[in-house]
């Protein structure tokens, strides 16, 4: 007797390879056949630097740099989403996927989103910032693991399989 309880699973993605691995891991393991889970892809854009209309040198910043920055950001979002799509498109079974984009400090936005969406689980990759051979947790994943109330899965880069 299977209980198909609907669960909301948030996967935080960014431009890194590790988060794509986190996404494919969660697809492999958290979405067994027949489950009713919803996958929420969350991408956080870095905060826009604030442009005043007159900068320090006294020049008036026209609309063009701002427009260019917006366009770059938009392209970044699209590329991350496209990469995620190639990951989940190969996946066989039937799952609901939602895409959400936030802006600001990644760790804060992720924690707030998890709380607001009342997610049942958060999956997050980790950047391998460590100087040592052992993988260290990136600051965002560590912060989120400590802050959020729901269970967290931290997916690290796979060590070389032998």
């Amino acid at each position: 007797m299977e209980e198909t309880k609907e669960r909301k699973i948030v996967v935080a993605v960014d431009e890194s390879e590790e988060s794509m691995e986190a996404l494919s891991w969660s697809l492999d393991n958290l979405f067994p056949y027949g489950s009713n889970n919803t996958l929420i892809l969350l991408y956080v854009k870095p905060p826009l630097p604030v442009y005043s209309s007159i900068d320090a040198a006294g020049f008036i910043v026209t609309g063009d740099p701002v427009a260019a920055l917006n366009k770059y950001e938009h392209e970044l979002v699209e590329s991350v989403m496209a990469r995620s799509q190639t990951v989940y498109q190969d996946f066989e079974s039937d799952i609901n996927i939602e895409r959400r984009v936030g802006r600001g400090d990644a760790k804060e936005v992720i924690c707030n989103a998890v709380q607001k969406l009342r997610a049942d689980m958060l999956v997050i990759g980790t950047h391998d910032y460590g100087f040592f051979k052992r993988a260290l947790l990136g600051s965002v994943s560590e912060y989120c693991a400590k802050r959020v109330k729901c269970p967290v899965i931290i997916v690290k880069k796979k060590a070389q399989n032998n």
Partner: protein
Amino acid sequence: MAEDQATAAMETTTVEKQPEMTETPSVTTTKRIMVAIDESDSSFYVLQWVIDHFSSLLATTLAEGGLLTVIHVQSPFQHFTAFPAGPGSATVYASSSMIEAVKKSQQKASAALLSRALQMCRAKQIRTETLVLEGDAKDMICQAVEQMHVDLLAVGSRGLGKIKRAFLGSVSDYCAHHAKCPILIVKPPKETH
């Protein structure tokens, strides 16, 4: 007809539905999930959570299902203690009978823990194995993860050190940093909310 329903379901937040495939995905490799147990209630909460969420993957009914490993690490018994007993503090060596007695009680305690864990697993028909190691909890758990090629390690957040702040206990924190596999951190539910 399925596609019409899918496009009708698409709303503002771009909900997508993948086309349904006929066969169940085959489990290619045995997934191994390890749960670390100690005397605290939160570790049993973790075990129950893993059982609930991964029951479909770990059921004994599957031919090649996953395997749940319950691991308990006993803290090593110091064979001697130093008592600050007056002017000349002497190191007292425990006699061998005392060592035997303590070892027995430790074994009894861990056997009780593991049987409780096994009971929880058997109730949901989970394929389980247990493991008892001796030594420093964080090192032994990380070593076991590496040697047994565990796919997911589940730990609680606070365990034995019950400090009422939202941060990770020392063993969980160490394992989160050093274990080579993905790690699942389950927080106990707050009683007073």
